[in-house]
């Protein structure tokens, strides 16, 4: 029976269903998509399942079937409220939206119990962008839909295809799995379980994960970058950038910080090197594209699969999760990292959060 759901009753921002995405459908032209901030997304799932699984994942199908990858609602800039049709246990993480259950403020980065008829409301967060709402047992989404090509993640540019349900709006019902008995109704043992869920804390304190102000993005340089002169490389690494308002889940556009705009004849990428990069090629998460105007574009979760601009390198994934929570006006710069170092960071990250 698909009777139990959260219904959106007010909405003034953006929200979508996200999991770890469909990396395996890019050869068909589908965006990989997925949760913008995997730290907050995986923390929400981990808080609610409290499953400590550090077993290696074999392939994307298995990643997608893992408990830690249950679809959550990604809320961007808060301003949304839900009504529960039945008792359920939820976790909330990410940007702090001063969430209230029936007008009582509750803690972020924690599990909570909702009863039938309860309303949970998210305000506009003071800092950061994306918040996550996960539910014990996982969402089966709008009409108990099946995952599309291994994932429930929604992609703005692909909604017209109709494979991942409707865009979320007031009235959308987000069904949840009833396999897990809601903890509220309530043998003593289960009540104890809820209390222990509530006591769950993120394995890494969010304050330690996110940057306080400026973020230095660690990039693995591309072959093109290594062909640049040492002076040009230094010029790029010394430049301070500001996040443009024209940034979203697809890509982050950067502008050179106005105070230090250099003379226009001092190009970072020579025409000669640029002319090697005319053919479209497959692109991936975190690639730093460098169009003619030399204002970098960092490819994020909802990126397209192919790109035609020169690429200077790839920002390591754990820094992309941090970047995804930064707003326009935020300041970033780049520094180099080796591939093994970046890979080690990601491995450690997943060991903590799966």
């Amino acid at each position, binding site marked *: 029976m698909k009777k139990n759901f959260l219904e959106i009753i007010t909405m003034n921002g953006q929200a979508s269903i996200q999991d770890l995405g469909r990396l395996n459908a890019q050869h068909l032209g*589908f965006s990989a998509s997925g949760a913008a901030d995997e730290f907050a997304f995986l923390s929400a799932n981990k808080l609610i399942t409290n499953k400590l699984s550090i077993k290696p994942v074999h392939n994307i199908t298995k990643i997608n079937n893992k408990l830690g990858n249950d679809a959550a609602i990604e809320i961007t800039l808060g301003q949304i409220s839900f009504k529960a049709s039945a008792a359920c246990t939820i976790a909330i993480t990410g940007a702090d939206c001063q969430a209230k259950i029936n007008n009582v403020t509750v803690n972020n980065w924690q599990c909570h119990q909702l009863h039938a008829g309860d309303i949970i409301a998210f305000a506009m967060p003071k800092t950061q962008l994306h918040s996550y709402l996960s539910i014990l047992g996982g969402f089966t989404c709008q009409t108990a839909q099946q995952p599309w090509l291994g994932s429930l993640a929604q992609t703005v540019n692909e909604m017209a295809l109709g494979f991942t349900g409707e865009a979320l709006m007031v009235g959308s019902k987000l069904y949840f799995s009833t396999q897990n008995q809601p903890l509220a109704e309530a043998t003593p043992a289960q009540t104890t379980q809820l209390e222990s869920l509530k006591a769950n804390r993120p394995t890494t304190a969010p304050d330690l994960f996110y940057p306080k102000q400026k973020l230095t993005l660690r990039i693995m340089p591309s072959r093109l970058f290594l062909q640049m002169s040492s002076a040009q490389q230094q010029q790029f690494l010394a430049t301070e950038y500001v996040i443009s308002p024209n940034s979203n889940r697809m890509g982050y556009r950067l502008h050179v910080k106005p105070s230090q705009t250099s003379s226009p004849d001092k190009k970072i990428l020579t025409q000669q090197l640029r002319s090697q990069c005319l053919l479209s090629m*497959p692109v991936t998460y975190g690639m730093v594209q460098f169009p003619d105007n030399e204002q970098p574009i960092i490819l994020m979760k909802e990126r397209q699969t192919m790109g035609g601009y020169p690429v200077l390198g790839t920002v390591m994934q754990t820094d992309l999760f941090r970047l995804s929570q930064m707003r326009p006006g935020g300041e970033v710069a780049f520094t180099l990292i080796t591939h093994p170092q970046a890979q080690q960071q990601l*491995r450690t990250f997943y060991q903590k959060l799966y």
Partner: protein
Amino acid sequence: MMSNNRERINTKVSNSTEHGVNFTIDLVAENALLLSWQAKISLTQHNEIIALQAMITQQLGELIIETVASYHCLMVYYCPQLNSSLQVIEKINSVAKNASHKHSNGDDQDNNPNNKLAHQAAHEHCIKIPVYYDREQEWDLADVAKRCNMSMDEVIKQHSAHTYHGYALGFTPGFCYLASLPESLQLPRKSSPRIKVPKGAVAIAEQQSAIYPIESPGGWHIIGQTPLPMYESHHGQFNASIQVGQNVQFYAISKAEFLALEQGLVE
């Protein structure tokens, strides 16, 4: 300081040309390798890329999450929690060496009679796409004719006389990059992209032609529209109508035929 860094940071891991393999491998992300061939549009090279893609998918199975091919590159995604990059690279190199060994045990690709047969077969399976080349100037046909210094009839004739090859799927699901457009029709992309390009729009830009599978933004010049769907899906599968490696021809139809076909397909 910087020069030290540069050496440590170098991500070039393999320059395989000396083994008779024509690509380089770069570690471009924690979970992705990029194989790059010469930056050119070449049928022979592309056939080599998609043949290697098929072999990697077949032989490396669970090691690999996904492969994405384009004109001169192959992106390979793997699971870094399970396999070291070096293991994956070694295996890819050994697959490629075996493949090139088979090729070089005789003659080069273009003289190989088997290859010729394969090419012929591909030509026989050419997909024919009906296009209503829109003369009512709603889109860009007249503008393209003007900029290419020819009549609209000539644009239609040249665009439909040519056989194209599918080099990559991307941009949106089912959007297949087709090349090469006759030189006389090559124009840079529009300086500002359209916010809405209709479903089925047949468009050109630079050396390429393509069909927009769904309404989306787009910066190419629209010269016509096809009533054929560019994908189908059932039982949770998605099939692009034009696959990478397939050949495509366009043929002109009238507006009446376009409407009839479109309605026939709707019913």
